[in-house]
């Protein structure tokens, strides 16, 4: 049976939402869940919910790293924090993957202490999903994967190529998109002189890579359009891009809410547009995607948003189950081994 370690203490809303998600998943999925958190709290919460305890083991964690704590200090001071114990369970082979909604920096630091990196990976990548106009893969997923979105601010050409390989492998497993289109986030030009050296070098390497369906440099407007299934960039750029996209989305929704409250005419107009608005809401509803991976370690990690409620966490768990039962790491290894020998081996950092 596949086992997934679930850090229940990481999210903004406490363990109840995690327990809701795991309780439902324990009935629907043939997966064992190693719930890491405060045992008495978890037992009390489970006892109030329909669940299948044959598929749940609780691992007591006396500590947790707060969402806004200084990650470096907290990880060092709390060796028995829930994220550390969850990572230990994965390292010891008791679980194949880990789901958390915790402090991203603490997750990365803990993972770095606990797991080796896949051979050929320099920087690991924190991925995010973003809803797009177009759908992709056998599962018709309406989102693209952006990586890196903040694990490492800088990326060498070699890192960018590795991100493309890892993102492609992930899309092939999760979206069953066997030939995902990969774009390098840039200013959209094909003019070599206008590209940064890293992107120029990575672009050349990706064109040569037999396992990557590279469509060239793309610009930020292509992200919501869904031109690429995998958007590759440095952590610095990715962090700015995703925050900008999230901000725009939130502003649009709050403007709509404001309009609804402010004027009867606008309210009437919004009611008429209800179908479209709800479609837009559904499209941009991040809860349906649940989580995104941290790629580059020998074990995959699925990170849910800190604000996640039960539905998003349940979806993150479903993704983790899919990843845990797959050959994702082997696919990444194969992809990295197929990189051209001079695929930007760090010279341009």
């Amino acid at each position, binding site marked *: 049976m596949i086992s997934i370690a679930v850090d229940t203490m990481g999210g903004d809303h406490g363990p109840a939402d995690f327990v809701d998600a795991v309780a*439902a998943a324990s009935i629907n999925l043939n997966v064992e869940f190693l719930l890491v958190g*405060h045992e*008495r709290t978890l037992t009390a919460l489970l*006892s*109030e919910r329909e669940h299948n305890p*044959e598929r749940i083991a609780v691992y*007591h964690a006396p500590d947790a790293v707060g969402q806004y704590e200084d990650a470096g200090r907290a990880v060092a001071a709390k060796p028995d924090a829930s994220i550390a114990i969850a990572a230990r369970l994965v390292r010891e082979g008791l679980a194949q993957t880990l789901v958390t909604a915790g402090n991203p920096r603490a997750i990365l630091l803990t993972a770095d202490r606990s797991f080796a990196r896949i051979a050929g990976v320099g920087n690991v990548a924190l991925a995010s999903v973003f809803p797009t106009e177009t759908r992709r893969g056998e599962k018709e997923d309406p989102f693209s994967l952006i990586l890196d979105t903040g694990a490492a601010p800088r990326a060498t050409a070699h890192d960018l190529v590795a991100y493309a390989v890892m993102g492609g492998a992930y899309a092939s497993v999760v979206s069953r998109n066997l030939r995902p289109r990969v774009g390098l986030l840039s200013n959209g030009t094909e003019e070599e002189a206008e590209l940064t050296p890293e992107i120029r070098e990575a672009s050349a390497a990706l064109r040569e890579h037999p396992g990557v369906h590279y469509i060239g440099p793309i610009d930020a407007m292509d992200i919501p359009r869904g031109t690429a299934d995998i958007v590759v960039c440095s952590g610095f750029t990715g962090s700015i891009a995703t925050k900008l996209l999230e901000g725009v989305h939130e502003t649009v929704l709050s403007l709509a809410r404001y309009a609804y409250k402010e004027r009867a005419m606008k309210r009437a107009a919004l009611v008429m547009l209800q179908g479209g608005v709800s479609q837009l809401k559904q499209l941009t509803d991040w809860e349906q995607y649940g989580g995104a991976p941290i790629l580059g370690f020998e074990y995959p990690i699925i990170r849910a948003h800190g604000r996640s409620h039960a539905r998003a966490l349940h979806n993150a768990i479903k993704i983790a189950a899919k990843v845990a039962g797959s050959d994702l790491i082997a696919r990444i290894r194969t992809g990295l081994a197929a990189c051209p020998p001079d695929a930007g081996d760090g010279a341009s950092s």
Partner: protein
Amino acid sequence: MSIRRVYRWDLDKTYLRTDFDSALGLLRAAFEGAQSKQNVPGTAGLLRELRRAGSASEVNRIYFISGSPRQMRPVIEQKLRIDGVQWDGLVLKPNIENMLRGRLRAVKEQIGYKLPVLLESRGGIEPPSPEILFGDDAEWDAFIYSLYGDLIAGRVEGVDLERTLQLARVYPDARARILRALHMVPPFDAVRRIFINLDRRTPPTHLAPYGRRVVPIYNYFQAALVLGETGELTPEAVIRVALEMIRKHEYEVEQLSNSYQELLRRRTISGAIGEALAVALRDFQTPPGMPSAEEVLFSFQRRVRAIAHSGRMAPPEDEPIDYPTLFVREQRRHHEAKARRKAPSLFE
């Protein structure tokens, strides 16, 4: 020969995996042969072990009481024989008689059927024989068994019994039978445990008002563990129940060790049975193709260690049960559970 223990079992959803939530399921249950009937995993093994736990001078009695119609007797008896289960009594519901008399409510209603049967059966048993009862969460087993236990222990006031039977709309003749049978039973606090198989995954806290005598279980390995800890079964017998679940029902060691941990976490067992199992497993020869004793021990010990430092909490003290109030609460709970089963899930 005296009676050491009386074990009373419900059939559907307690011993047999019966689907009576759909018309198709009901039809299938009515017409399928003994060979096609499926056990709830572990039940056959557990019943054999319970029977075997008696001695030459003290026997363990096994009685079945079921809401299935009397016409099913041959099939059920054949099924019990196939499973190697020995029994001392099997009471089935006179559904055709109820229908012919126009007592349609009695076809579904359980309190007016099971309570007099239990009391009448108790009347024929020597007072010091303790009872352990097995039911499920699909209907009213926890309520009926608890009421039965408290009635024979003399803990229920007549006025509360009357009010409860009224609320349950028990037919007057069944009420009279209950009162008559109750007068024939010498008072004795006989009911030690009531195991409720959580077929519908009712959250255990929903059964908390019944007190610690009612033990919600998710599978029969959990029942065997509790019975092992209280000395009803030997550790070897508990292991044999587990092996049956692995061999016949494809249980994995992890599922069993998680079940063990769940009982520890709920403070249903103290862990003494785990230690006894560890000792017994050292000398136990697991059959070929089964997980090794070391593998089993490792899995169990890992789950015990996982919660070793979480601190112990004393289980809450039991309160006397106010049956009329509990009846109303249970009725509401059953309605809500039914509505929940029909409602789309948040996670779909």
